[in-house]
């Protein structure tokens, strides 16, 4: 029992140390570095659902199921989660977002979403890209 407590304490300390830094550095385009570190080849990836209203609706549904608990219903971010309407996310290419969604950022608490099919990840990106448009 004592061993389990010590082990649990050590693991919690490591987890806290990893989660302690939450600064949001950006590159020259103003894109979050954690997204901009995607390989260059991702810049040419095309969203197969780009501009499709049904895909954006499906993406919104998926966003509410998987993402809203951290990023908020309005996608402006809760706690340490990023504001997905901000230029630091919206200026990223669809390919960079697809790479980031698949890989996540484990030290900062963003889980990888490789477990949901690629088609659904593109649908989420289709929805995310609608959030950057000006509203009238």
């Amino acid at each position, binding site marked *: 029992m004592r061993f*389990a407590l010590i082990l649990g304490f050590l*693991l*919690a300390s490591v*987890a806290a140390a*990893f*989660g302690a830094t939450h600064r949001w550095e950006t590159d020259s385009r103003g894109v979050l570095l954690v997204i901009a570190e995607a390989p260059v080849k991702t810049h040419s990836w095309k969203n197969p659902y780009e501009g499709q209203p*049904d*895909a954006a*609706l*499906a*993406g919104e*549904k*998926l966003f509410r*199921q*998987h993402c*809203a*608990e*951290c990023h908020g219903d309005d996608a402006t971010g*809760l*706690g340490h989660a990023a504001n997905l309407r901000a230029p630091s996310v919206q200026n990223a290419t669809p390919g960079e977002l697809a790479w980031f969604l*698949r*890989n*996540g*950022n*484990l*030290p*900062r*608490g*963003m*889980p*990888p*979403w*490789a*477990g*949901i*099919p*690629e*088609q*659904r990840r593109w*649908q989420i990106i289709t929805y995310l890209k609608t959030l950057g448009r000006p509203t009238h």
Partner: protein
Amino acid sequence: MIARPPLHPARADRPLRARALVAFLGAVLLAVGFAPLARAQETPYFVAYSHHLEEPGNLEIETYSIYGTQQGHGDFIAPWMELEYGVTAWWTTEFYIDSQATFGDSTVFTGTRWENRFRPLMHEHWINPVLYVEFENTTDADKTLKEVVGFDDQLDAAEPNSVANQSHTHEIETKLILSSDYKGWNFSENFISEKNLGHEPWEFGYALGISRPLRLAATPRPCNFCRENFILGAEAYGGLGTTDLLALSGTSHYVAPIAAWQMPSGVTLSVSPGFGLTDVSHRFLLRWGMSYEIGGFGRKLRSLF
């Protein structure tokens, strides 16, 4: 100023620890009540594990059961409960409570287990490893069959509960989980080693899983019965002997198709009939269960204190 009425004598005498426990449980219920529901991306396996961990801060409450046919004794149903929590994006911890009821015998609590899974690599790869460590504090009456290792024999479960439940075992179980996602399919391979902390050899086993949603893209509107909510798959698992004798002869092996229904409400229902492949395997197993994902549980709980 309004005078506060004196506490009821019975309430005043209630030990502080009990009141603290009631307050904590109340806070948990509040957190559950106000927490948003979420849908995990976990695969539907009962025995095999994929590399997908619980999302950080989410709590998944799971209850499962297994029915098994038994030679030489009554058939059994072994229910267990799991509380799975995403501590970080790379660490998931899980607590189990096991029990079983044997027809013509009795119903017994058979122990607890504490499991941890870690992702050592920060990005997705073709094959993604996860390290698994579990401490088991169970009795020989445990029939949940969460893993099959060594020379596990179905006759091991034929002992009367009154005898088997007297024998306590403390075991460490480790797994190397390898898992890949490709075009909507998940392929998982687990290599299991288990050590009774008494003087017994390491036992080895394996579990394999494959699964895929019936539809890859999501439909625009919420729906309960659309194909995207259903996942089909199969798993195979069995023993591989011990450090004294690494062999397939005399080991148990099973194959089991799986179906899961992930509802938009955050509830997932799963069922899996399993079939024994060797003479020492249980001839038939049926697993079923329900899980309920509570999103942002950790954040909500912290905000209450």
